[in-house]
């Protein structure tokens, strides 16, 4: 049960943070559901986009931060393009994701987080993405060795699958860029 005003009060600070960072006023949402109607990933969400917006409106910010939806959002911005109130729904979800990162909420969508982390560490190491390296690393870490194995033969045929990682000269500079991240790492 949502208790008013307790719920609103409890979520007020976080909500204000999300509104400030995203530049969106959540109260403008009138729950028409068009964001959900256009979302290609919503079927995999625990909360569809319009419910994320509603949860924020009533102060249930933690539910949003911890949601799988916030992690799974593709940021394709279709919802933002369609919102009749011109709200940047994707931007709100994106902000929620960043706030969740900073708050250290790491339980949902571990594989996806792992992939993103692996991707970025891969770039940190080489300066560019080593696709084959990421591919094998991810499958090893997730104990799913045959994930996308069917794609390998055609890739190999294309000669597009490089086993030797790319290297750039100023890798150190790239690493310095990584040191400038504000949010929490890991």
């Amino acid at each position, binding site marked *: 049960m949502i208790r008013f005003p307790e719920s609103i009060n409890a979520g007020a600070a976080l909500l204000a943070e999300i509104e400030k960072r995203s530049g969106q006023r959540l109260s403008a949402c009138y729950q*028409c*559901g068009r964001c*959900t*109607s256009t*979302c290609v990933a919503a079927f995999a969400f625990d*909360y*569809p986009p319009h*419910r994320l917006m509603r949860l924020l409106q009533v102060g249930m910010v933690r539910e949003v931060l911890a949601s799988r939806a916030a992690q799974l959002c593709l940021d394709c911005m279709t919802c933002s393009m369609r919102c*009749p109130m011109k709200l940047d729904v994707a931007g709100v979800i994106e902000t929620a994701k960043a706030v969740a990162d900073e708050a250290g909420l790491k339980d949902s969508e571990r594989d996806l987080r792992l992939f993103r982390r692996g991707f970025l560490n891969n770039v940190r190491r080489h300066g560019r993405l080593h696709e084959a390296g990421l591919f094998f690393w991810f499958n090893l870490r997730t104990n799913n060795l045959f994930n996308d194995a069917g794609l390998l033969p055609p890739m190999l045929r294309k000669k597009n699958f490089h086993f030797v990682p790319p290297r750039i000269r100023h890798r150190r500079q790239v690493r310095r860029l990584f040191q400038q991240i504000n949010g929490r790492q890991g």
Partner: protein
Amino acid sequence: MLGVFICQCGTNISATVDTGAVAAAAAGMRGVAHAESIQYTCSDPGQAAIGAAVREKRLDRIVIAACSPRMHEATFRRALERAGLNPYMMEMVNIREQCSWIHADTGEATMKAVDLVRKAVARIRAHVPLQGGKTAAVRRALVIGGGIAGIRAALDISAAGIPVTLVEKSPSIGGNMARLDKTFPTLDCSSCILTPLMVEIKQHDHIELMTNAEVDDVRGLVGDFQIDIRRRSTCVDEEKCTGCMICQEKCPAPAPDDFNAGLCQSKAISVAFPQAVPLVASLRKQYCRRFNGGKCRLCQKLCPAGAVDYGQEDEVVSRSFGAVVAATGYGHYDWTGSYPTFGKGLYPDVITSAQYERLLSASGPTGGLIRRPSDGAEPRQVAFVSCVGSRDESAGRPQCCSVGCMYTAKQAILTKEHIPDSQSYIFYIDMRAGGKNYEEFVRRAQTRYGAIFIRGRVGRIFPRRGKLVVMGTDTLAGDQVEIEADLVVLAAGLTAAPGAGELARKLNIACDETGFMAEEHPKLRPVEAAAAGVFLAGACQGPKDIPATVAQAGAAAAKVIGLLSRGELETSPMVSAVNPSRCAGCFKCRDVCPFGAIDKDRLADGLVTARVIESLCRGCGICNAACPPGAISLNGYTDKQLLAELVEVLR
């Protein structure tokens, strides 16, 4: 002797402005003999207090700090008159709309209010008593637009014995209502209600009907508008045509059928629809072969009445009117531009409710059988999409169309009546059924007719194997929805009628930001437009349903009757006047006057000076600003008055 009254307006003003302090400050201003703060100055006790103060302290000029003068200036002028003062010896100070309502800080708002009162006190010392004149009013009204609003207004005005000219742009009166099948919430047949009224218009002695006609030019002002009406050439002599439709039958040139919302084709020469009033054919030159390089004269040859005249030209009729009723109705929002995800109009089976209305109608292109446009099949699964071009700021249309929910429910009911094994789905956001018996009607659609209401806005419509996939959301169930529909009906929003803005400009009245004509005040002057003598009826003022339209048309008619029944009108004394002893005779005033209201006057000593023709002067004051020696002044807004204000607010 000056009296100052500070209105508290309940708490509207006093919540932010310390009215007591303003009154105290006013009491100390030069010439002020009386200052008080009143709870509701516009109320009876408030006006009585003004009267009492005038009598007791022999006040001769009054300053009232209250709401906007646009709201109550007339009220207080009457109050002064009752108190025995010249009504123009009053100055209003706007401390509500332009002070208490826009400031949060009491100190600041109070200080501003004192400033504004001081400005008015200074100004009113320069006031002089003004006396309005009387002018004869033309006893004839113009009604623009022949939909249900215009028809009702014309009938009501003429019932009071005032002649009416009814101007309609299209070939027949009837408007949008004539295109409807049935009407909510009673489901009575639209034609059955409307057609008798249309006929009554045609037969009425006091009503002059002009179809294919538009207002060309408007001059003059309330009581005596001179209006040019252009009657478009239709190449058909209205007197001779009997409406036999032989021409239409034989005409070889196809043309869009406007009446049927483009669902089918008509002919270049045609009768608008079988119940049209007047029942005459008209020829649309842009589609006619003869007017596009061809030699065809079939209609002329075949017309048994000899009514076809290719040489007919536009005719401009000039008339004088005492008052005007605008009843131009509404237009349909063109959704194809702003909703690319609905197919941009490329899917034939995505239609608007206006088109669906024609499919439902027995007089429509399918004879009342619901057949979808692409293949003529009878649809089983029908999806209704609400709020297309309504409540959508991304499409620049934030407003509610106010009738979509109701007519969509109606169409779902009629769908079930036409095709008993059909299923209707209504995507809605909020069900707005505020009228009498409306909610019950919507419930009926749901319970008795089994329409499935889905709360959520549709995101996409795309084709799949001859059907249309409607992707939406059921926000109540919290999940996405996909429907394979045979037919999709979009409840497209209502817009101002095409050309309404241009007409408003000619009539010198305002439109709101959505393009509908603006009333002077939503509660105090709901049918009055910004220009005196112009009234609004029906959907030209904003989207509304038929009952509200008819009611407003009656109200507009009552206003016209009230205005013209006395035969004469009071004129404003706020016109320009020339002080001949200061006139240099340069006539710059005459050059700038938009109304030709300046004439030459030869004084006894031979000097030539300017003179104002008061009956033509409208009180804009442009001449005043153009006069180098300051000889011409606009009563009520003289240089002296404005300078007094200016100096005082900057003190």
